[in-house]
């Protein structure tokens, strides 16, 4: 059986597979979706060209994403006898120059990002190791451990790093009930957003009688700005499969579905391949590793509806019905897919499972806080220096994530807030930056863990505008089934739109509606929260409630002064020429695309507000900084 070789290799062979030492040069290119977006395909082509031109016998490996999206495309080089070294922003043009120098044994520390543990090899001077690099230093990389490091298509590499040991040992040593209890003991909670204890969920499904049970992996990942699940699948697909197989053993499922959005073609390709290989290696299919466990894995592509992340809607979608939630109870663990007991967990939850079963529930539970154990992956984005994927131990403060790992705010601007938990989440202002990553702590400050979206906002971000963005998203993604969510979110959006609309652009009736609307905003929010059918609707008002809670003064400025303090709501900005500073050079008038600037040459100009479209061309054109906005 092929599987034997996966587990019976000698230490030397494993070292080779892990590339602790290499016989010939290896060039790695981070070719996840994010890397490809930054130009990794050109980098890859340039690397191939360079290797061919220099007649070097080298391996080229496409890896997933290591997490530092801000510096992509990333290219690693490992020369025989030398530590693996990572270079940042390696675009197609730069690749050959970097390769030229590194193959000569020299690196420009400006382009080098980080170097791997040297081990028996010689390290590189002046290049930080993972333990030293500020972005990686504070992370606890369990789920992302292999991402960007290994070849995601190689089951050998996964196994050489301890992969499938957890499954092998679970099948040999634990009964399904013991497996459930291990999950319970670990304290693992749903990483998709709800935070329901995973072990408890498994226990419910385990307790259900019946031959047929289903296991479903939710890889729908619909939050704007979230890409944790995609990175895990692209960078380390076998980890997900192993986690799911252990879960299936625990609850007694023989059929499993991965519900993944069709917008993730690379992830789907990796999964398809991984499933085929795992079946070949007897890690999926009938009698897995010679045990009584049989598991058949199916991929179901979703059409990318946010609501299909809700478990009952997801079930409907897999069943071929319209993705609309249904009332719970009955909960899926009792009556789920095709009416059978079903456990639904998200990708990150399953990806934690091998970790728990390999090193024990105790070690997992030891990391984190009392009620939130293990780690959490966040997609860090927005106005932060180091955007990308970070994995931190529970209990890490938001300040650490934003300022230490994230490197602080871009362009030295002042921090304003982070939005955590996507459209259903909330924002955390300056005053609460020391809040710890913990399901309960976050709830206390009016936010939620969510699936891992973390958007950093600075002083130039308008919080009313942020609320408007999320409200727009939610009202478009509402399934339309229940009235409060379908009709209410739309009206809330309209109210926000009216607040950010200039008086010039509204009719008398609209102005009246604006006043009515402001008075209704919180009332509407309360009805939507308390009466909506599913989680999407119940949390839909959160962006408004949370920004209103912490940034009421910004709302007030919009409503009463009709001004946007952050200068983001274009409609509320007024452009003005400061008479004393204007020399009458006419440059601004010439640049104005709508002819809104008038004035005789050599005398101060003025702007006709009704005509001005607030494009900012005049500010750029003015050599005397005579144009102001307010």
């Amino acid at each position, binding site marked *: 059986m092929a599987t034997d070789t996966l587990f019976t290799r000698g230490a030397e062979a494993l070292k080779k597979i892990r590339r602790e030492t290499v016989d010939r040069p290896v060039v790695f290119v981070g070719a996840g979706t994010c890397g490809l977006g930054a130009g990794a395909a050109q980098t890859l082509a340039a690397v191939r060209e360079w290797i061919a031109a220099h007649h070097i016998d080298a391996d080229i490996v496409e890896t997933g994403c290591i997490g530092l999206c801000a510096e992509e495309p990333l290219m690693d080089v490992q020369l025989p006898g030398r530590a693996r070294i990572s270079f940042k922003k390696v675009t197609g043009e730069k690749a050959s120059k970097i390769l030229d120098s590194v193959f000569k044994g020299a690196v420009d520390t400006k382009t080098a990002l980080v170097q791997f543990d040297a081990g028996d090899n010689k390290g590189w001077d002046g290049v930080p190791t993972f333990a030293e690099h500020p972005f990686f230093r504070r992370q606890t990389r369990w789920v992302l451990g292999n991402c960007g490091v290994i070849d995601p298509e190689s089951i050998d590499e996964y196994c050489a790093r301890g992969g499938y040991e957890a499954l092998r040992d679970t099948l040999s040593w634990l009964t399904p009930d013991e497996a459930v209890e291990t999950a319970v003991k670990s304290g693992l909670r749903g990483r998709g957003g709800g935070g329901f204890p995973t072990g408890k969920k498994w226990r419910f499904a385990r307790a259900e009688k019946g031959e047929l049970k289903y296991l479903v992996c939710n890889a729908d990942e619909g939050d704007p700005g979230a890409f944790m699940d995609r990175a895990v699948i692209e960078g380390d697909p076998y980890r997900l499969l192993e986690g799911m197989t252990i879960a299936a053993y625990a609850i007694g499922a023989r059929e499993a579905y991965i519900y993944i959005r069709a917008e993730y073609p690379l992830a789907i390709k990796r999964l398809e391949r991984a499933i085929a290989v795992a079946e070949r290696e007897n890690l999926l299919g009938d009698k897995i590793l010679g045990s009584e466990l049989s598991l058949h894995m199916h991929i179901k592509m979703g059409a990318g*509806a946010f*609501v299909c992340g809700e478990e009952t809607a997801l079930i409907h979608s897999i069943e071929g019905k*319209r993705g*609309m939630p*249904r*009332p719970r*109870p009955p909960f899926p663990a009792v009556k789920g897919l095709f009416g059978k007991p079903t456990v639904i967990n998200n990708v990150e939850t399953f990806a934690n499972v091998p970790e728990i079963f390999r090193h024990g529930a105790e070690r997992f539970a030891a990391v984190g806080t009392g009620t939130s154990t293990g780690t959490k992956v966040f997609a860090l984005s927005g106005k932060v220096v180091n955007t990308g994927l970070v994995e931190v131990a529970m209990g890490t403060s938001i300040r650490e994530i934003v300022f230490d790992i994230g490197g602080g705010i871009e362009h030295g601007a002042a921090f304003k807030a982070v939005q955590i938990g996507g459209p259903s989440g909330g924002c955390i202002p300056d005053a609460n930056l020391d809040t710890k990553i913990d399901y309960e702590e976050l709830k206390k400050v009016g936010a939620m863990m969510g699936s891992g979206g973390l958007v950093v906002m600075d002083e130039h971000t308008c919080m009313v505008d942020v609320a408007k963005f999320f409200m727009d998203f939610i*009202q*478009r*993604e*509402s*399934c*339309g*089934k*229940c*009235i*409060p969510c*379908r*009709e*209410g*979110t*739309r*009206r809330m959006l*309209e109210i926000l739109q009216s607040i950010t609309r200039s008086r010039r652009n509204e009719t008398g009736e609209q102005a009246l*509606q604006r006043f*009515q609307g402001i008075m*209704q905003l919180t*009332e*509407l929010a309360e*009805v939507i929260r*308390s*009466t*909506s*059918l599913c989680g999407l609707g119940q949390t839909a008002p959160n962006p408004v409630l949370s920004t209103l809670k912490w940034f009421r003064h910004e709302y007030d400025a919009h409503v009463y002064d009709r001004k946007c303090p952050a200068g983001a709501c274009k409609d509320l900005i007024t452009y003005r020429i400061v008479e004393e500073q204007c020399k009458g050079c006419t440059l601004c008038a010439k640049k104005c695309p709508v002819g809104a600037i008038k004035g005789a040459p050599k005398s101060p100009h003025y702007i006709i507000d009704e005509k001005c479209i607030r494009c900012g061309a005049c500010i750029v054109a003015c050599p005397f900084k005579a144009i102001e906005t307010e």
Partner: protein
Amino acid sequence: MEQMIANGNMIPFEKGETVLTALKRAGIRVPTLCHIDCLPPVGACRICVVEDTATGQLIPSCSFPAAPGLSVATHSVKALKARKTIVELLLANHPDDCLYCDRNLNCDLQKLAEELGVRQRRISGERIAQFVDNSSPAIMRDPEKCILCGKCVRTCEEIQGVSALDFSGRGSKCKISTAFDQSLNLSTCVSCGQCVMACPTGALTERSSLREVMNALQDPKKTVVIQHAPAISVSLAEEFGLPAGSDIMGLMTAALKKIGFKAVFDTSFSADLTIMEEATELVERVTKKGVLPMITSCSPAWIKFAETFYPTVLPHLSTCKSPQQMLGAVIRHYWAGTQGIDKKAVYSVSAMPCTAKKFEAEREEMLVKGAPDIDAVLTTRELAKLIRMYSIELDKLEPAACDLPFGERSSAGKLFGASGGVMEAAIRTAHYLITGRELGNLVVAAVRSGVGLRETALTLNGLTLKAAVVSGLGNARKVLDEVAAGTSPYHFIEIMSCPGGCINGGGQPRGIDRENVKRRLAALYAIDAAATLRVSHKNRAVAELYEKFLGKPGGHTSHELLHTTYQARTDLL
């Protein structure tokens, strides 16, 4: 029974019941918009929320399981405020045209707004403009009035098994749509009108023929006659505030005469005629090894259902026209001559409990030289409107009798209004035709009681006839699958499109209250029990019609006028 608390009092519930069911039993009303009693709850409208007094949370009573220890307040300020806001949200996207709406004074949304004290347009915003779909000959759809409760979708799919409608689009673009957003006439809609019955607003209505009828009544060159279906006399009363199941046959006839119809005929007469033709056809098929089982053809939505979903079953359908079309044919091609009127001058109206009859009257198979036998079909609801429009006060009328010769009927013909009625009438006559004796007390109990599929067997002169009765197209599917597979054990099957038959037809007074349907049913059986003429073959007017005009059942003239053909419509799938 276990107990829970509602408004401070203990109320009983059975295990597995929802809070709403328990409340209903205890006589506590909680309004709903999307709930359908006989189907699993969907929890879409959220109008039924009640407050859980322990947590202060609002829970949807329609889907929340009742549990011991649960305590709810059905009309707490919080619950009432939530309900009111939800209604206001609906109204914000609803056309302000109650006065011009078909459902004015009879609309669930309007009633709810009134009950909850909506007196001001607090919430306003953009309204979504949509087009009216008037493509179907039977049903009009005005999506702007739709509140997306989904009752029509569930009725169409889960009760009727047609699935012509479903949700499409997301968020505020969400709407009820046919496949590929085609107009209704190009969809698989069978025009049964059950969606119209379920609709809480004016989004679904019949396509009205009132104006045509009124114009004809005014036209001196036209002789306007009307026939009314067996189920109408026991349901029309509800439109005038009388209890369900009141039989107002005489008053209705009087009202129609007062409106100006030259003759008022009873479709029950042609039901008797149908029995003569259909019984003859059945005997022919049984004795001459024709296609069996034979299936009834009175219900036009069922015909379209078969044409669309079961085209291979079409040879099993009786070739008999429906009673409406039979009477339409003899009125125009026989009665007009007896009255010395040009048959083209007859304007033939029918009052039916059905929306699909509008579609049937326009079928190309029903046209004679391009002209229809039935010029206009009115539903029970339209008939009530007509009576109101002519300012007729029913209570001030003297009951009148239908006009002869098509006013005489047996109570067997009257039973056509209920599911099982055609079968019962056919069995009574078949018994007589084959044995020469009347059937015992004439009641065929096996086809009367129960829901879904009912079956009976009848041994006559050593010949055992097996028969089945089914109503509701969803229920019919199982029987039809057997027929299509060639494994059906029956000789004769009665299929009615609407659950319970014509008394619950898509043209009846609005609502899906099963109690009303039961009362209408009881009224029909009471009429039968009290009748002296209870079998179709003893209807002298029918016999006379054969004598003077048609010849014999199944004869040449009959075939010309009383039988029809069908067409497969698989292109709609």
